C-alpha cells in the first residue's frame, strides 16, 4: 500500500481505467491511421518538440 497524501477519489480512479481502455483503442486505431497516412504522404510525422508540447 502506498501512502497517498491526496485523496484520489474512487470514481476518479475508475474513470482512468476506463479512459485508458478507450485511449488504448484510440492509439491502436490512430497508429494504423498514421501508417496509412504515411503510406500516402511518404512523409514521416514530425515529432513534437518540447515547446510545441507546451503551447498550442
Amino acid at each position, binding site marked *: 500500500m*502506498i501512502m*497517498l*497524501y*491526496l*485523496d*484520489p*477519489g*474512487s*470514481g*476518479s*480512479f*475508475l*474513470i*482512468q*481505467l*476506463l*479512459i*485508458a*481502455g*478507450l*485511449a*488504448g483503442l*484510440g*492509439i491502436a486505431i490512430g497508429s494504423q491511421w498514421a501508417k496509412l497516412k504515411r503510406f500516402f504522404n511518404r512523409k514521416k510525422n514530425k515529432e513534437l518538440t*518540447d515547446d510545441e*508540447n*507546451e*503551447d*498550442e
Partner: protein
Amino acid sequence: MMKTKTNNLSASFRDPSGFLFTRDGELYRQVNTVYAPEYDRLMSSGLYQKLVEGGRLIPHEALDVEPAAPGAHKILRPERIQFITYPYEWSFGQLKSAALTTLLIQKTALQFGMALKDASAYNIQFHKGKAVLIDTLSFETYVEGEPWVAYRQFCQHFLAPLALGAYRDIRLAQLLRVFIDGIPLDLASRLLPGRTRWNLGLATHIHLHASAQKRYSETALSEARHGRTMSKQALIGLIESLQAVIRKLTWKAGGTEWGDYYESTNYSEAAFEHKKRLVNAWSGKVAPKVTWDLGANMGIFSQEAAQHSGLVVAWDIDPEAVEKNWKKVRADKQTRILPLLLDLTNPSPAIGWDNLERASLGQRGPVDLVLALAIIHHLAISNNLPFERIAQTLAGWCTWLVIEFVPKSDSQVQRLLRSRKDIFPGYQREDFEAAFGRYFEIVERQSVDESERWMYLMKTV
C-alpha cells in the same frame, strides 16, 4: 549563537514531505526524512536535471543550514520567483500553458520512474516568461499498475476552468477564486453546454468523471478498484489524451470594453509619446525590482517601464487585453512583462485555511513602483472612490507612484459622466494634489503635451 527569526509559510503546510520557510529574507524549503527516498531519486535519476534544463522546474541548491523543524533530510534554497501569481489571475493562454507544462512534467517524470503526486495549479508560477513547477516535492516513485493519483486534481484545477472558458464563458474561470481546490467536476459538468458531451475528451474527463465520482463517492478505493491495475502505457495514454483535449481548447475573445482602446483614445500622438517618455524616464529614476502597471491594457506603457524594471506586472480587468498582451510578450520573448487579470476595485483576496494560503494583492506588495495611468477617473467617477481612499490604498502598495490626472473637461471623463449625474464637485486637480499630498511627496509634475492631462511622480512619505 544568535537565534534568527524563522517563519514557516502557510502556502505549503498540507504536504508532509516538507515545507517552505523564510529566514533573514531568504526562502528555504525543508525536505523531511519521510520524503528522503523520493527526493534522492528525483536528484539521482536525472529527472531534476532534465526538467531544470528544459526550464520546467525551479532550480535549487542544497545548503548546509540549520533546519526549521526536526526530521529534516535536506534544506534547499530555490531560485526566487519575482512575483507570485494565482490561477484566477491568469489569462486563458496562461492557464493552458500551465496545464500543458504540468502534463509534460508528468510524462517526463514517468520516463524516469517517477510521477507527480499532485497537480495543483498553485504549484505552477510564471518565471522568466514561462510556466514552471515550483514544488520540488511534487514527485513520487512510480509504481507500475497505479493510476494517476492527481488526475482528479488536474481536471478540477485545469481542465474544468479551461473547458468552461472555451465553451461557456471566460468569466467562469473566476470560480477558481471560490473553489481553492479547483472547480468541482459536477458543477463544471452542469455549467458546460450539452454539446460538450459529444466531445470525447470532455465527455470522459469531465462529464463521465463527474458521474463516476457521484456514483462511487461512498465506495472505498480498494473496493472500487477490485484489484484492477493500469499499465504504464495506459497511463501515458491517459496523459496524452489530456494533452490532446487541452491543446484543442481555444478561446476566441469577442469585442470587449478595451479591445480598441488605443485606437479610440482622445489624445494626440504627441501627448501619447510624451507620456511614454515620462514613464520611461521616471522608471529609470526609480529602477524598480517589481513594477505594477494598473490598467495596463496591451502594455504600451509597461514596455517603457520594463526597460528599467526587473519585472512589470501588467494588470488589467479585461480578459481579452490580458490574453492579447500575454500572446504579445510570448512572441516578443519579453520576459520582463507579466500580464495578469485583476479587477482593481475588487482585487484578489487572501483565501484558504485561516485566509493564509493564498495572499491578497496588497499582501504581495508593496512594490517599488506603481503606474496608475488613465485610471483615476474610473476609480473616482465610475466607482465613487474619494481621492483620499485611492491615495491611501496606493500608498500601501508602493514606494514610488507614477499617476496621471485626467481632468473633468477631458472627453473620456465626459463620456463617463454622460450616463450619470455629476456628483463629483471635488474632482479637481487641486483636490487630487491635496489628497495625494497627505500620503505622498509630489516629486515631479508635468502637464502632458497637447492635452489637459497631468503626470506626477510621487514618493510615499
